[in-house]
């Protein structure tokens, strides 16, 4: 009788302790999983936004101050101009890009000896191999409007904007819908994007309801190149 009581008590104690440990482990694992998603989302934001901002120029390709979103020219490819015809209306480009240039949604910035000029990309077809030297890329014949004579190099861009909404970092191409780039891990009310004259700041607060601590926040600051140069030279 005594043995039975002792073993029952012991068994109850072990099971109770084990159950508590399991429950706690489950909470910890859930929290860790959320933290990992949060880290991944922040890392992705840093990589994507860093690349977009390094590709452009403040004032020309993105402007500030603004609060709530980052609207910019998102560059998607480039190519040296190997030939032109029709007084600069058609150019042959050795195109390098993360995707093919699309006349429906893309425009081009064209470099001449006078500087950068903007034009619409109205047509794109495979072009003759016009480059005398191997520059790599795909040879393409582009029709641009207005024509630009003396084109040396072209860059393809689309209009886009980045937002933090619905708990995720989202990208909106042109006037389309906002597509999520990360999981829903940010606090919708407190997270935002602030575009200043000298930098872009991402305030990314963890969503407390999803397991993140209220204090878990990250501020990603993307300084413009000139500002970085000035900070280094103390100007």
């Amino acid at each position, binding site marked *: 009788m005594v043995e039975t009581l002792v073993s029952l008590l012991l*068994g109850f104690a072990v099971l109770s302790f084990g159950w508590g440990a399991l429950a706690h482990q489950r909470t910890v694992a859930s929290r860790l999983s959320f933290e990992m998603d949060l880290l991944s989302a922040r890392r992705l934001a840093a*990589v994507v936004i860093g690349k977009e901002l390094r590709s452009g120029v403040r004032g020309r390709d993105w402007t500030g101050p603004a609060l709530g979103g980052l609207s910019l020219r998102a560059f998607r490819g480039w190519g*040296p101009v190997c030939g032109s015809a029709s007084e600069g209306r058609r150019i042959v480009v050795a195109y390098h890009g993360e995707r093919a240039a699309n006349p429906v949604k893309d425009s081009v910035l064209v470099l001449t000896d006078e500087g950068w000029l903007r034009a619409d990309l109205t047509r794109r077809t495979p072009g003759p191999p016009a480059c005398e030297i191997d*520059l790599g890329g795909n040879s393409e014949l582009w029709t641009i409007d207005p024509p630009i004579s003396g084109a040396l190099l072209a860059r393809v861009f689309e209009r886009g904007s980045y937002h933090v909404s619905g708990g995720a970092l989202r990208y909106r191409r042109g006037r389309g819908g906002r597509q999520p780039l990360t999981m829903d891990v940010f606090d919708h009310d407190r997270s935002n994007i602030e575009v200043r004259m000298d930098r872009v700041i991402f305030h990314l607060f963890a969503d407390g309801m999803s397991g993140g601590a209220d204090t878990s926040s990250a501020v990603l600051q993307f300084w413009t190149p000139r500002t970085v140069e000035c900070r280094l030279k103390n100007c």
Partner: protein
Amino acid sequence: MLAVRRKGYVLVGVLLILLAVTGVAHSLLVMTRSEFFASRARWDRLTRRLAAEMGLKVASRTLTGTDSLSWGEWVPSGSAAVPPRARYETRVVRLSREVFLILAEGSLETEPGRDRQVGIFWAMDPVARYADAWAILESGRPAQMDAGGAVDPTRLRDTPAPWPETSCSRFSPDLDTLFHSGLPRQGELHEDPRAGIRETMGSGGREPLLPSLGLLGHDALIKGSDLHVSGSVSPGPVQRLGRCATSSPSNWGAPLDAAHPCAEYKPVVTSEGSLVVNGGRGQGILLITGDATFRSAAHFYGLVLVAGDLEMTGESVIEGLVRVRGSVFLGARSRIVGSACAAMSALDAAERLRELVPIPQSAWPDTH
């Protein structure tokens, strides 16, 4: 005798809990490892990117004097290992006379994958600068001339008298490709003594700024100077132990003596403030941020950029091209003799002004 069956609930329970805890620990381990690998991949990518950016900077710094590249040439410009385990390779192509594209690839010695950076740079080219603004005298306000003072356009394509014929002959093929039917309005220049004068230069704003040379503005021009002078100078060649004394502020080369050690010395001379050139002779590029005065028999060969006014008196002569933000006065016996050769050879000799400079914000990651 009946066997007694004992039931080990506790043991089974402990084993189940251990199994569950092991599962949780394993999942934590997997998450930690994936986070570790993600961080390492990011670190590797950052290292590759920094190596590529370093390649871009090194190539742009080392590629001075752009004559080594013909138009459209696509050549490797350098590669190096960046300790401890990254390396970069660069290639450069000349897109036009003054615009260069540099492609830099960063990689790791132990891991596959490359990160590419593209940079667009500009370097001053004498022929392009001349073709861009070939007027002999360009000023912000009308030029005043006494009777006898003149802007002489008749020797624009000639080599200045004391210089060997070979000094500027190498520019001719390039000029011929830019001006297929000869220099613009050269025939008119002979007929109209003011045809080589343009009075269209902007004032440069509230601060007196030097006329720019392409992308080289006031600060960049001064930064590229070899000598700094002020007040009044009578320049003349200086040699020590048979060598040209390039540290002497009054040594502006020896334009009239082909055998002198300073015959090929064509410095970029800056005066931060007004300057009086009181006789003497020199050659090169003269940058004056205030007013410039040439007196008595001062004789200068090359390019003169003045942020203020220019006054020439006595028998002073400038052979080359002149750019003045303010007004110009030429006395009765003073002359500006137009000479593309003198100006282009001075620009050609100014190596520090011919370094590659990034076209503003024209470097980007190539992510294809």
